[in-house]
């Protein structure tokens, strides 16, 4: 099997921002249990910025590490900035992923997008 980078392993063993947020402003769930990957992102938004973000992930080492890394990358960013973070950027921040695991980084990007979309949808209704 192809090896993970040290950074992937570090994030896998000490994931940042694991858990749930009580009464979150947005929740996004991506992935599919069939494929063995599900990521759920919770966000708290203040002044259009991601004030808090937490995740729960069912998946392999890469899925957990990319979840952890993406939460670090988007925390404190404006929503528009957060939406610009690509899967490639997440993978690069982890010093790369084995080719077969690149789809895990897609989930990280999509998870954040889904949470922001959910937040925006809820807020549209409020307005």
């Amino acid at each position, binding site marked *: 099997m192809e090896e993970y980078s040290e950074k992937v392993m570090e994030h*896998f063993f000490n994931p940042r921002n694991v858990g749930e947020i009580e009464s979150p402003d947005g929740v996004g769930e991506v992935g599919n249990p069939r494929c063995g990957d599900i990521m759920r992102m919770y966000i708290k938004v203040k002044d259009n910025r991601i004030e808090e973000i937490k995740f729960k992930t069912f998946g392999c080492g890469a*899925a957990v590490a990319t979840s952890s890394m993406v939460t670090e990358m988007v925390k404190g960013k404006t929503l528009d900035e957060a939406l610009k973070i690509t899967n490639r950027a997440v993978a690069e921040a982890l010093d790369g992923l084995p080719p077969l695991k690149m789809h895990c980084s897609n989930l990280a990007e999509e998870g954040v997008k889904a949470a922001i979309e959910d937040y925006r949808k809820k807020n549209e209704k409020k307005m």
Partner: protein
Amino acid sequence: MDKIIYLDSAATTKTSPEVLDSMLPYLKDSFGNPSSIYSIARESKRAIEKAREQVADALNCNINEIYFTSGGTESDNWAIKGIAFANEKKGKHIITTSIEHHAVLHTCEYLEKYGFKITYLPVKSNGIIDIETLKKEIRDDTILISVMFANNEIGSIQPIKEIGDLAKEKDIYFHTDAVQAIGKIPIDVEELHIDLLSLSAHKFHGPKGVGVLYLRNGVNISEMLHGGGQEKKKRAGTENVAGIVGLGEAIHLATKKVEKRNKKIIKLREYLIDEILERIPDTILNGDREKRLPGNVNVCFKYIEGESILLMLDIKKICASSGSACTSGSLEPSHVLLALGLKHELAHGSLRLTLSEHTTKEEIDYVLEVLPIIVDKLRGMSPLINQKK
């Protein structure tokens, strides 16, 4: 624990010191080509013939029914393709099972491209085929039945004697992939009516890269490799002398005192299974509890994924394996677990621990100490479980 706890004996085993010692002369001074005529060449030739006797003894067959190959995969490929192409005028139907090793399954899929019809028998939820279903699937043009002796993932043991009897009665060739069974279950090819049998040395403390196809005299099969006259012109190529010698020594050691060794391994296995099921909730055992390889434990932990379990076991120096998609390099979890009727998300959470005669109670206790903590940690991260805190 300081040392590595190796619980992946179904993947491979450590070459035993006696086996290594038996091989070394043929990697040093006794390097002669067995096909040549001078003294060091004759030594090589004699060594191969001794190994052939050791294998024949272990299987209760004639020495001229043993063919050395590069391992289990080659033996499976040869058995199935060799029978198919040599007997296609008689029929183009082959029966196998849905839980075979890929060396059998992918070979059968390959044959489908050449017009062969393959029946993949389902298994019951315990991983064992139904002999009545097999009977019903036999047709006039069935030329081969290939059913593995015991499964590599879940350890389930098939009713080989009944299949052998049936195949003999219907005059159909019977091949069994016995890679996992050799050295764990006594095998007598006469009593079981086996016509072809695959085995691989590294699964029973022999070296990697060497195996055997047992081929009953009179079976009509095409050659595996064309070239020189080795292995009665059926499998050409200069022999892997040291490997063959190691295989002979290893099979001799492995088939000695099987019962006594099994008793010890089964006791540890039962303890491990009982304690895992006791200590970790939402866990299921895969495969049959009784008709199971002595050293096989295969469980699914709900809500978590196998590769993550393996990575966490690895830092605790425990070597194990899983049927999750992430460990197989595809998006699908193990075909064996799916064949048992498990849901995908459950199959992704599988863990296989395979014990050997070297496994100790201390090692098992250590695994039982760390495994519940690992499962808890991963479940704490899982979105599939609703934790109300």
